[in-house]
């Protein structure tokens, strides 16, 4: 089924269109897509991402490749509805298509046998940390995973993470699942009870990554975070994704997205990510209003759900 928001004109916009083989919500507002992209599937390494443009009027947004299947020629992405583009993306379904996907971009994660690695995933960050956790496990590390979310529903990929971890801890802000508290509380506990930790990989909201960095800096534990600045091309061409790393400007799309957490200036990242807040808000409001109108117009309510079902069950 073609989607009303997606108009495809392969005549000019390149010859490739990327088919969605499967799409399903795995948590409220978080959807997993299996997409046909054989070239990318063949080359993907853990820690790399793609840039996606949904339709002809769309912006380009970066999304981590959760996993790929080189034989089937597919890549998976896991998308959380945040603003207009992620809402639009999450309204697409099995059988729809995405206009542009380019990748794999960014430096792959550094995978070696560190010893014991703590992998921390906050919210949708878990999907971004998963491929690296799996690779770390394959490299012979002892993997301790800490998953966090605001509530039980937002703790994602628990089963997948269990398969690649020696131990999994879960925290929720409201205590609806696992321990009540933050992922950093759990990390504190591990450090305090003398667990040997050789390396930490933390992926999630910026405040979480910053808190982890502050904690492990004092303990002198090497820590890697995956940064999420605003990107356009993803190839080093625009410089919009620049982040400050130990006072130096680096382009996250080619020099990252993973960086040594202790050298990152998180305040500047927060400041730069807020650059378009008003426009983003307006975009999302327009999109939701259009969805509302579409729903009202649709004769059968079931059909209305298929076009703007962005929240999931």
């Amino acid at each position, binding site marked *: 089924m073609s989607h009303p928001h997606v108009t495809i004109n392969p005549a*000019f*916009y*390149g010859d490739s269109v990327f088919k969605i083989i499967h799409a399903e919500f795995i948590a409220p507002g978080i959807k997993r897509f299996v997409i046909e992209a054989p070239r990318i599937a063949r*080359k993907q390494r853990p820690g790399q991402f793609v840039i996606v443009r949904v339709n002809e009027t769309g912006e380009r947004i970066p999304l981590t490749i959760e996993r790929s299947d080189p034989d089937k020629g597919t890549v998976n992405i896991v998308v959380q509805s945040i603003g207009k583009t992620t809402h639009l993306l999450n309204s697409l379904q099995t059988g729809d298509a995405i206009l542009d996907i*380019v990748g794999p971009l960014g430096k792959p994660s550094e995978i070696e046998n560190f010893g014991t690695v703590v992998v921390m995933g906050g919210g949708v960050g878990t999907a971004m940390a998963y491929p690296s956790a799996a690779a770390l496990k394959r490299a012979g590390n002892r993997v301790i995973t800490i998953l966090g979310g605001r509530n039980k529903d937002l703790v994602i990929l628990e089963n997948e993470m269990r398969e690649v971890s020696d131990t999994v801890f879960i925290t929720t802000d409201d205590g609806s699942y696992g321990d009540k508290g933050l992922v950093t509380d759990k990390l504190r506990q591990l450090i305090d009870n003398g667990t040997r930790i050789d390396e930490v990989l933390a992926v999630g909201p910026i405040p979480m990554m910053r808190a982890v960095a502050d904690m492990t800096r004092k303990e002198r534990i090497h820590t890697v975070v995956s940064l999420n600045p605003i990107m356009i*091309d993803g190839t080093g*061409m625009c410089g919009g994704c620049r982040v400050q790393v130990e006072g130096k400007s680096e382009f996250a799309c080619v020099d990252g997205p993973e960086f040594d957490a202790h050298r990152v200036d998180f305040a500047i990242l927060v400041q*730069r990510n807020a650059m378009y807040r008003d*426009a983003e808000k307006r975009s999302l409001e327009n999109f939701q209003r259009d969805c509302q109108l579409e729903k009202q117009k649709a004769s059968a309510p079931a059909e209305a759900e298929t076009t703007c079902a962005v929240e999931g069950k």
Partner: protein
Amino acid sequence: MPTTHKSSNPVPNKERIKMPRQHMPEQLPQIRNKQFTEVNLGYSAELARQEALRCLECAKPTCTKDCPVGVKVKDFVQLIVDGDFLAAAAKIREDNVLPAITGRVCPQEDHCEGACLLCKRGESLGIGYLERFVADYEQQHFDPSTIVKAPPTGKKVAIVGSGPSGLTAAGDLIQKGHQVHVFEALHEIGGVLVYGIPEFRLPKKIIREQVDIMRAMGVVFETDVVVGRTVTVDELMNEEGYDAVFIGTGAGLPQFMGIPGEHLNGVYSANEFLTRINLMHAYEFPKYDEPMVDFRGKNVAVIGGGNTALDAIRSSLRLGAGNAFILYRRSEAEMPARLEEVKHAKEEGVQFQTLAAPLEFLDDGKGWLTGARCQKMELGEPDSSGRRRPIPIEGSEYVVPLSVAIMAIGTTANPIIRTTTPGLATTKKGYIQADDTTQKTSRKGVFAGGDIVTGGATVILAMGAGRRAASAMHDYLTTGNW
């Protein structure tokens, strides 16, 4: 001296010198500086013929000598006089496959027009305007059934990058009967022509039409492929069966000055700003999703003096900037931008602060740009580029209040191909080393040209390189000799 083509120009030579150059019809400055539609409206057939009549039909045309691809100016201009515009277009195409583009963006004053004898007496022949006229005329009367292609050779070539060098190489190679596949990292074909040069100077429609002609000729375009990441040069040759590869990836990496405050909100590289505008249509927000900070009534400065700088500042005006400054560290005479762009920018209200450079960007304490602390310059001895070197004047510091600053101080080579193609020789600055006449690199079967070899240059120089490469590639593909 008689020329080979019998002239049908009825005007005696003495009279031709006195004829004024025909003005290019253009939108009024106060109207065009608020919209992105093309500034120059193009000659009518009548104006074109009038202008063509000025050509002195020199025996040894210096215009052709100074055109990097040797367009036979005198011959095509005579065909305009004859009224055979399609033949004129075909004549240009013998040397230049993208005349609708070069007619608009070539720095003619440095090439054909700068060499024109009429310059000495007044104004040069409007060669760029005439080239543009016949190219546009041809476009409107294009008949796809006239496309002729050589019989298939069975050879496959990959073109990496779809800027003017890649497009030229692709166009030439398909006509020689090879299978041609163009790989482009972005989602649109055209390189700087679509992401850098704005609509008001080079409408996207023109590039689309050229690309559509190439499609009709059989060129396959694959967007969303970053060679080096999505597939490597070696994989293209060893696994996908390409017999030769042309690398035309441009000089796309933006440079910053390394001064304090470049991370502030409101500071852009020209590449980012122009990409948001051109490729992503931010000026059509919210119809297009790409956002842009609010320029309306704001002070905006672009740092630099090239075409990129002028494109950025004129785009800023069109987004509603209240005051639009060019901050350039040398004087206007040293500006590398095309003369016509400088003239247009002034007419549109751009303010030129030459002999000045920023030392630091200032902020409001919340991460947003509020101004630049600048320093005045004076000119010293010429430097390696032959232009007089700017020297800071002690104690001349001053502050310009600014909401947006755009850095247009040049670009360098993107390292992706260099670091993923073993054995590919590069210069100290990271550009690919290629032979001047064949564009051959250190890797057998791999050719390179355009900005990735020369550093940021011009459209016509990139096209020239694409053409030389295509010819050498054809030799290599048909003889197997490296």
